[in-house]
């Protein structure tokens, strides 16, 4: 069930260039049932900023009622958020969306592909998948300064890193790394910028793939039709917030 709740900030700290990790606590966390779901964050009192900000759940712990979000400050809203500190409260709507379907995967070789601020939800995904599967994570960042969670990913997957400028790991894009992998993956999961998803969709069309897509949002719950994409289904479209944000690669047009 979706909830609207003031969560308590447990910690909030920079973990890479312009990138922060925030740990939040509250009952809402109990409602999270899959990696890949997201929450919708109100900025300040919401007087000046009328739209919430969608952020993926990077990891969650039902026992502690805690979840982690990882976010890159791009504008005023997340800049405000980066200034929160322990004990502050944050107005959160969620969990939203359907997340990654991992329930039926056992003993598979799985490829997880992330780029930039698309990386966060893949961490909880890798945690889950790694319980019963063999997971390889290919993560792309702009440069060394932007990299985060490398060790966390290494704990739960084979992790390969690409940077656009070659300042760390392999120089180039995630697709360059994938070309060099000769493993027989059965399934892939990807989250990142549209251009990356589109290149991956092309490159791995022979595989069963799941893409997590971003779009500017209004309501976040399927009511306003802001976040629509054309799709190969009856209706001819999907709503990212309600039908996604994760889609089978054959369903959506990028």
């Amino acid at each position: 069930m979706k909830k609207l709740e003031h969560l308590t900030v447990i910690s909030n700290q920079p973990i890479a260039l312009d990138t922060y990790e925030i740990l939040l606590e509250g009952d809402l966390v109990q409602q999270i049932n899959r990696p890949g779901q997201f929450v919708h964050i109100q900025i300040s009192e919401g007087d000046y900023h009328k739209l919430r900000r969608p952020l993926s759940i990077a990891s969650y712990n039902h026992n502690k009622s805690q979840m982690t979000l990882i976010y890159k400050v791009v504008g005023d809203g997340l800049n405000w958020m980066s200034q929160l500190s322990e004990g502050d409260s944050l107005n959160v709507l969620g969990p939203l969306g359907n997340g990654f379907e991992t329930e039926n995967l056992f003993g598979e070789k799985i490829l997880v592909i992330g780029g930039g601020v698309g990386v966060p939800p893949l961490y909880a995904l890798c945690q889950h998948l790694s319980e019963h599967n063999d997971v390889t994570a290919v993560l792309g960042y702009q440069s060394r300064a932007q990299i985060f969670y490398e060790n966390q990913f290494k704990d739960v997957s084979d992790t390969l890193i690409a940077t656009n400028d070659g300042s760390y790991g392999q120089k180039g894009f995630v697709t360059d790394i994938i070309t060099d992998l000769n493993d027989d993956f059965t399934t892939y999961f990807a989250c990142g910028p549209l251009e990356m998803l589109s290149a991956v969709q092309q490159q791995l069309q022979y595989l069963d793939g799941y893409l997590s897509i971003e779009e500017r949002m209004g309501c976040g719950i399927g009511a306003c039709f802001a976040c629509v994409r054309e799709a190969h289904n009856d209706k001819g479209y999907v709503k990212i917030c309600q039908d996604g944000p994760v889609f089978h690669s054959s369903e959506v047009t990028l």
Partner: protein
Amino acid sequence: MNLTVNLGGLTLQNPIMPSSGCFGFGREFSEFYDLNELGAIVIKAATGDKRFGNTTPRVAETPSGMLNAIGLQNPGVDQIIEKELPFLQQFHTPVIANVAGSQLEEYVEVTEKLAAQQVVKAIEINISCPNVQEGGIQFGTDPTLAYDLTEQVKKVCPKPLFVKLSPNVTDITTIAQAVEEAGADGLSMINTLTGMKIDLHTQQPLIANETGGLSGPAIKPIAIRMIHQVRSQTTLPIIGMGGISTTEDIIEFLLAGANAVAVGTANFQNPFVCQNLIDELPETLEKYGFQSLDEVKGAVTS
């Protein structure tokens, strides 16, 4: 406190309803609270055929407001009747169906079909749409076009007909007068103001459609002004909207001359907002010395 209002023959248990386009067909919000609590439900615009709407991005944030260019995406009137209205039948809350179109005939056809549905208790026509036959000029910006449209639609609409006015006009009173003379049973005001936001990174409009409709608290002073202006010339019921997010806002709209109010953008920030406003309205009315809604009506600013 008794919050009942009569809106041109339509009785509402309270004056608060979500506005068209900001509540889908109710389904999503029914996960948050019981839709029976609402004064009415205004559903998303229906057109003759299904429409996909505009390219994304379709929304952008602005100071105390937002732009949207959804582009009237909807499954078409027949699908709405078949797939969406049955869900709303389980509630006793009156449904107001919002109608849009590119031609007069489309408005008439869609209205006729929707007005025939038992669950639909009133029709609201959105006259901010561009008229393709008149080269894209909006029905709502020309009194003659607005008159004709209202007159023709009213012929097929035995239920209360509300005309939703566009604020993008030099003189809203002439449009209000035209639609009243053409037989409108009530007015909804205001729709969004046309605005634009440019993305400094791409140096292009942030909304793919270039312009979008500005809504939210930013436009409230314009809505209040226009309702106040129109109220001085008519006794038609007015559904007021434009930036409402608190019970104080609601009282301000009622004092300006609205009989009921619709809440749009605020639903996105707080899906419970309509329920909260309904709960809190009596207390706020008392705080400002009102023992009933009628007392507010009596105090309408002249």
